[in-house]
């Protein structure tokens, strides 16, 4: 088989009918809608990111508040327990003397 001739024939076949230049109806409107969409998307994603950030901040704030309340109470108990433990020996010593 003459491959060069086959190649030439096939290329001539591709040349013989160039592809059409028809455009789907209102294609430019579709492109324009897509051109405007990324901007709208950017704003909406920025807005939703802000809402999510605000919600997480509120949750974090409530958690910190709860923790600080709890820790104040615990620290008071701890200080009393610590005092009792430290002074327990002295109390026992006084009791023994009496």
């Amino acid at each position, binding site marked *: *088989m*003459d*491959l*060069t*001739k*086959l*190649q030439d*024939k*096939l*290329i*001539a*076949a*591709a*040349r*013989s*009918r*160039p*592809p*059409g*230049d*028809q*455009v*789907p109806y209102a*294609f*430019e*409107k*579709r*492109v*324009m809608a*897509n*051109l*405007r969409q990324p901007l709208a998307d950017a704003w909406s994603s920025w807005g939703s990111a802000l809402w999510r950030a605000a919600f997480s901040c509120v949750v974090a704030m409530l958690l910190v508040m709860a923790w600080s309340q709890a820790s104040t109470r615990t620290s008071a108990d701890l200080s009393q327990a610590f005092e009792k433990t430290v002074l327990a020996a002295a109390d026992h010593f006084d009791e023994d003397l009496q």
Partner: protein
Amino acid sequence: MEPSDSELIAAVLKGDSASFEPLIAKYQPRVFATARRYARRESEVEDIVQEVFLKAFQKLSSFRGEAPFEHWLMRLAVRTCYDFLRGHQRNREKPFAELSEPETDWLERFVAEPDSASEHADAARQLINKVMEKLSPANQLVITLLEIEDRSVKEISKLTGWSVPLVKVRAFRARAEMKKILSKMSQEKYL
């Protein structure tokens, strides 16, 4: 009187994005015809054309107006088509056993009597599409521009951004790869 391309471009650059619509309307037939050289499915063609215009809009500030807008746009179109080819190399590994009956008939006619096989036959066009799909993206691009669209090496260099020697080397390799594919096709079919 309709505004010129440069007036429309200046308006877009000043923030009037609606002025881009007449530019799309004016040049979309050419971009569609170019995209149809590389993509077979109409949905793929539409995606390519849309991407070309989106890129054109985003990069419009880089258009310096030294050459016509059409040339700048067609460079963008060719490069987008090349990116498409690089991303869609699905048919390269398929065997040729899937040739249709008219394609096989056309090949058999060519083998029996090369001059009797018409290049105007649909089967020949389908066959060349199948052969083109088997070429590497760079080779497919260079064969399309050089052999099918009959463009000069210098023009191809401008369109693709490749140097003139690189276009020549790629054209040589593309022809060789095409012959290899045709030889493989004939071996699969007739041995």
